[in-house]
């Protein structure tokens, strides 16, 4: 397995089988460099992502793990988010995620739908709504969720909506599928006519990476081109599979495969494993 380094922060793992594939490897690297080189400020793309949900549902914890290299156990020490916390996350050279982590306390939520409505809900690319599967007041959760949807319809009709049913680890294993199905059906009904994508997540396993990879995938502007090039590359070098990860978050950006693989969850598992490994290495080097 050879790993190539692209200066823009992409790491890819492929297995070129033949001579002459080096040429195409180089060609692909060149393509990636040109697609994702850092742009001058004028054409940097900023994508606004709203992260909303009831207080204590796990929004800041997820964001810390994916983007700030927290390990799951460390998120126990996080405090409540006061009002909105903004972070600008550089992604793939010329893409910036403008992430709005919105505190979910009642006072703040009321505010988001009244005096701050336009400010919050305009120009949104992606809305991520987090549901705590253990919540005691499902009706109220739904009420807030629907208020969000109304605001989105009024201000950012084209926004993509992702619903995360979170803290699945707290549900007993044999009940998980059923609970998730119930929730998804409820959400899909309530979200009409908007189309949503749902995920079941937990910070303690790879499901977190599956959800966020998909979310980020939806934000990349030239993803189709990228995928077709990746496919070409995969067939040229006769690889079983080529997967593209983003280097600091280890989220999957795209993949191309020529064989069918049994494990549909292999990507997030790889993300999770490598991320833990990286963090472990960093801790060791910090200590020494």
């Amino acid at each position: 397995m050879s790993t190539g380094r692209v200066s823009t922060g992409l790491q890819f793992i492929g297995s070129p089988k033949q001579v002459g594939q080096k040429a195409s490897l180089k060609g692909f690297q060149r393509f990636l460099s040109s697609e994702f080189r850092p742009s001058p400020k004028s054409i940097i793309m900023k994508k606004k992502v709203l992260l909303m949900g009831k207080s204590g549902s796990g929004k800041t914890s997820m964001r810390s793990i994916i983007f700030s290299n927290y390990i799951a156990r460390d998120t126990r020490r996080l405090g409540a988010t006061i009002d909105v916390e903004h972070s600008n996350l550089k992604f793939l050279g010329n893409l910036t995620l403008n992430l709005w982590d919105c505190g979910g306390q009642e006072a703040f939520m009321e505010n988001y739908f009244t005096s701050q409505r336009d400010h919050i809900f305009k120009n949104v690319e992606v809305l991520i709504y987090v549901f705590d599967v253990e919540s005691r007041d499902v009706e109220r959760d739904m009420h807030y969720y629907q208020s969000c949807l109304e605001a989105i319809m009024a201000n950012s009709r084209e926004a993509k909506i992702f619903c995360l049913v979170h803290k699945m680890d707290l549900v007993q294993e044999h009940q998980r599928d059923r609970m998730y199905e119930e929730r998804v059906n409820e959400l899909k009904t309530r979200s009409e006519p908007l189309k949503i994508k749902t995920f079941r997540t937990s910070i303690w396993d790879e499901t977190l990476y599956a959800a966020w990879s998909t979310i980020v995938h939806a934000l990349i502007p030239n993803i189709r081109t990228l995928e077709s090039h990746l496919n070409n590359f995969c067939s040229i070098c006769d690889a079983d599979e080529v997967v593209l990860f983003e280097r600091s978050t280890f989220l999957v950006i795209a993949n191309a495969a020529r064989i069918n693989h049994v494990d549909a969850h292999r990507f997030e598992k790889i993300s999770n494993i490598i991320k833990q490994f990286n963090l472990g290495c960093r801790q060791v080097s910090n200590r020494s």
Partner: protein
Amino acid sequence: MEFQGFPRIHSIFFAVFDNEKGPVVQHQVPEGTIVPHSPETDPSSSNGLNDALFCTKPIIDFEAISEYIITKEQLNGRLVSVCNNNYKVMGVPVCITDHVRYKKLRNEYRFNLCFVFERDAETSSYEPIVQKMATVLEVLERESDFLTGDTTNSGAVTIQNVIEQLLEDLNSYCECQIPINDSNTINLKLFPTYPNPTSVQNYHVPVCTVDLSSMMSINWDITLCKIINHINGISSVRKIADKANVKIEWARQSIEHLLYYGCIILIDIYQFSNIYSIKPEVMQLLDEKSGLQEECIDYVTLPGHSPPTISQLFKLYCGLQHGITLKGLITTNREQAENIDLRRLITFGVIKGLIYRVYKYPMLVNLTTSASVSAETLPSNAINQNTGGPIDPQLLSFLDGNHHYDEICTELRCSPKELDEQLGYTTNFDSVPKQPAGLDTNDAGDAVSVGSRAVISDSVSNTNGNMDLWAVRFVFR
């Protein structure tokens, strides 16, 4: 510098961050001022009688300002004031982070004790109080869970008790003492703040306006005690420091303190070479209703002599103008001034704003280039055309036009006459002319004494050709 009294506290409230609801007001006095009073949730504080005393409508919209009450990290620990149309709210947001103690509260406890005043109230005296309360509450919480602990046992003091007593005592007595438990008491006192006084210089002369020696106690600062006895309205700060044998910086600071509290006024060193000039306010002397006339006569009459008339005093004041020294004034008016203490006449005039002191600034001027000279560009070996000799190096730094005679004489411990000799200042008049000497202005528009000008122009004809010509000019302002 009149102190108007402390502004009234309209309300005090205690806000916390609730992990479900967000920022909420947990306690407020009087009830209903910040959030509507609801008897159901707080049965202990309401009964039929008291309901009538409660505020019916909140005076502030809490939700509108809550982001400045429970704030983001950057504002924690700082004094934050926010105003709406009618009221000003002052508080210090506090955040205590403790993973163990606040495990169930998401690792943090945030609170803010806020004071509400009229919007335009002068609240600077309260700022230390608000800060202190924040510190005290934080310490109490950390040491004995005062804010989050269980307060069901009836004897214990609660935060509600505390703010009730704070409001009552600070408004009524301007001080407050609240025992919390065996080991803790809250002590607060309001101190008035005055505007900062002007800075005190070594050549200023302090005059007492209150009887300091009777107010003095052994607890006062030692330097202060030493110098008070030497404040006599005549000695300059430097002289006081010399006589009392204290460091000049400490003497100056002590005088500054006395000035801050309004115990003294600063005037000039009284010298016969001083020049004063009248201000339009001198007309107040002619106004019988102002009471100024009696005061003046009382103050300036020499003991054992008959009091002067107000027209006498007025005439003397009018005799003060640019170009006329006190010596000149006395010489002219010797008979009219026999029963008058001239020093007191001058002091009275300065303090009441009837006359002002005209200072004399020596300035080294480059005659050849007529370039202006600053402190950095003073030459070290110039020949002063006035005297024909070099300038004493000690004097050089004072000759940029920013230092007047009083200052130079005080620093170098010389008399004005000696300084005149050094710098080559001469006047041609030993007797005071009836008309003021012809006043000219230099390029800067300052009045220049004609006498010295004449000296300079005489010496221009002796130019040397190679070296720059320097002379000392004198500016009166």
